[in-house]
């Protein structure tokens, strides 16, 4: 027994030592790379969900970034140097995002991070970025809490707040005053819903019933039964992912609930238009102004289709566009400022009416994106003006 314990202790200690050594070796190798390549490459960090529940977002966004980087590098790079992106997994959660950010800042030595995608990632990463004067630029996080999360924190994706209020006003305009809500219990969905609710009640409407469901459930039928019994003029549905949105649509129509649906931009996600075209027909929602047919936007989608075969149906196209624009915007700032983050910061705050795949972008004094939101409606299976 004595000997057995000793062997296992040796084994245990060895395991730990191996782990520590592996990390240190990995780190030094990485730093070594940094030093040797800094004359050839400009490094950009990227933070997003590459595993876990939101992984279906991360992959298409990674593709967009790779496309943009390839284009930039083929056009001479940034002042002759190649742009290189280091992708890290934030797992859509604060602790992991912080670990990833720490690694990007301290091991890879990046000065700019494009990310997070989930708001939890951005909120987790922001303090570290702020402290290290590293630019954190999110192309996908909508939490209103991000507005105040740092001087070096920017986004070209609008705060969730805007979508909800625009749709609420649309409902009132359409004389739909009594609304029933079905929202997923996530940060994004609840934030949007809260704004919707406030705007609606301030404009003379009322929420007859406010139902929610947890993300790990797939059966919303009793919530929908309650909604049906409340006899609303219309329903407001906010899900966290197009997959859940589709499920909600399916169950709503199966239960014979036929009222007008107000929702978010998932109505236009590829998978929804394909699999639920009948159910989503007529849905009204608001998006940051993104005209698929406009030059730059259309170009982007065509390029993506050409390179990757098909567009992932998991994300509405607007997320792809903001991601694409972000890469370009950041590389333009690097052109002007090299990697001096204070200079880049000032440049970013100056962004006004910049034309991009997403439309016209202005960044306000909080680092937030000012977007015009427009109402859309699904007509004949396609996104159209509302």
């Amino acid at each position, binding site marked *: 027994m004595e000997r057995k314990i000793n062997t296992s202790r040796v084994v245990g200690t060895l395991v730990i030592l191996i782990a520590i050594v592996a990390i240190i070796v990995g780190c030094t190798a990485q730093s070594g790379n940094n030093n040797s390549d800094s004359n050839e490459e400009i490094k950009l960090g990227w933070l997003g969900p590459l*595993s*876990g*529940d*939101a*992984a*279906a977002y991360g992959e298409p966004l990674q593709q967009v970034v790779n496309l943009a980087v390839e284009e930039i590098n083929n056009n001479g790079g940034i002042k002759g140097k190649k742009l290189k992106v280091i992708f890290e997994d934030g797992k859509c959660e604060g602790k992991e995002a912080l670990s990833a950010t720490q690694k990007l800042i301290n091991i890879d030595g990046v000065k700019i991070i494009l990310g997070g995608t989930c708001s939890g990632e951005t909120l987790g990463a922001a303090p570290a970025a702020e402290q290290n004067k590293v630019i954190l630029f999110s192309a996908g996080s909508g939490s209103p809490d991000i507005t105040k999360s740092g001087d070096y924190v920017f986004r070209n994706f609008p705060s969730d707040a805007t979508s909800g209020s625009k749709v609420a006003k649309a409902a009132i305009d359409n004389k739909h005053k009594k609304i029933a809500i079905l929202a997923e*219990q996530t940060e994004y969905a609840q934030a949007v819903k809260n704004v919707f609710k406030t705007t609606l009640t301030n404009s003379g409407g009322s929420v007859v019933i406010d*139902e*929610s*469901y*947890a993300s*790990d*459930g*797939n*059966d919303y*039928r*009793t*919530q929908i*039964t*309650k909604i*049906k*019994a409340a006899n609303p003029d219309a329903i407001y549905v906010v899900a966290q*992912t197009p*997959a*859940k949105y*589709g*499920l909600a649509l*399916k169950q709503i*129509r*199966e*239960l*014979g609930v036929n009222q007008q649906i107000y929702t978010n931009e998932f109505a236009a996600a590829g998978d929804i238009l394909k*699999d*639920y075209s*009948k*159910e989503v027909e007529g849905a009204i929602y608001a998006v940051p102004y993104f005209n698929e047919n406009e030059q730059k936007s259309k170009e982007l989608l065509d390029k993506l289709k050409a390179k990757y075969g098909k567009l*992932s149906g*998991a994300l509405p196209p607007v997320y792809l566009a903001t991601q694409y624009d972000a890469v370009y915007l950041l590389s333009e700032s690097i052109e002007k400022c090299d990697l001096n983050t204070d200079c880049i910061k000032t440049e970013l705050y100056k962004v006004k009416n910049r034309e991009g795949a997403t439309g016209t972008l202005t960044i306000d004094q909080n680092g937030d994106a000012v977007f015009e939101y427009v109402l859309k409606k699904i007509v004949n299976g396609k996104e159209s003006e509302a």
Partner: protein
Amino acid sequence: MAFTQLIVNGLIAGAIYALIASSFSLIFNIIKFMDLSPGAIFVTAAFSAYAFNIILGLPFPIAVILALIVSITVSLLINKLVYQPLINKKSNSFTLLLASFGVFLIVTGFILLIFGAEVKTFGLPITKGYEVLGFIITKTQIILIITSFIIFIALHLFMKKTKLGKAMRAMSDNKQVASIVGIDVKKITNITFILAAFLASIAGILVALEQNLEHNMGFLVILKGLTASVIGGIGNVPAALIGGLIIGLVENIGIWYLPSGYKDAIAFVILIIFLIFRPKGLFGTKTREENSG
């Protein structure tokens, strides 16, 4: 009117919980351990059926049969590689429960690795359900309930009437005596795992058809199935049906009155209440756990 809809909603959910609970109870009877593998089998069957039917394009009945074969194999492997070694070492029940959790995570991890993170569906056509007696129910849901019902009847008959069924019950009562009487313990154990895997697999495939497929779909289902089994009386297979239906009904009727975000908590509050006041469940027989030292 809405009330009948709630009952139907409860039956649909309850049928699934009941299948999982029966699977859980069957295994508990034979190895006398709580284990979470029905959750892993649930996911495996769902994704296997999807892989065979949608990805490989095989006709649905063939896909189901192949999925069953895969799941049953996995179930037998889990028993052979993980549970039997632990049982042979006379491990305590918590060790096995924890190991089964580990197994669940491994299986789920592989599903994630193989199929990726995107949610999948069978893409069945969506139609408004049949409206009858004040509630609405779709074709798929009717099939779900009927299939479960048939399986439960078949299971009951099997346990009561067939030689194998009787052998299983004998073993659950007293393993030593059973083996003395000539029952092949190993064979019956394997058959139990096959049967339990069958139940969990059907549940998985039904849910995949009616809702969708995610790699984590087995987690809450096995925990609620476990709850249903405890409520019915752990180890009492027919009672697992009742337990499952109770959970399904209370969940759905409960959130008629409570904020619906609390839906999952309902099942576990019921679990805690039963564990405190009536651990042997509604129809339970002697349970080893609370009595022995």
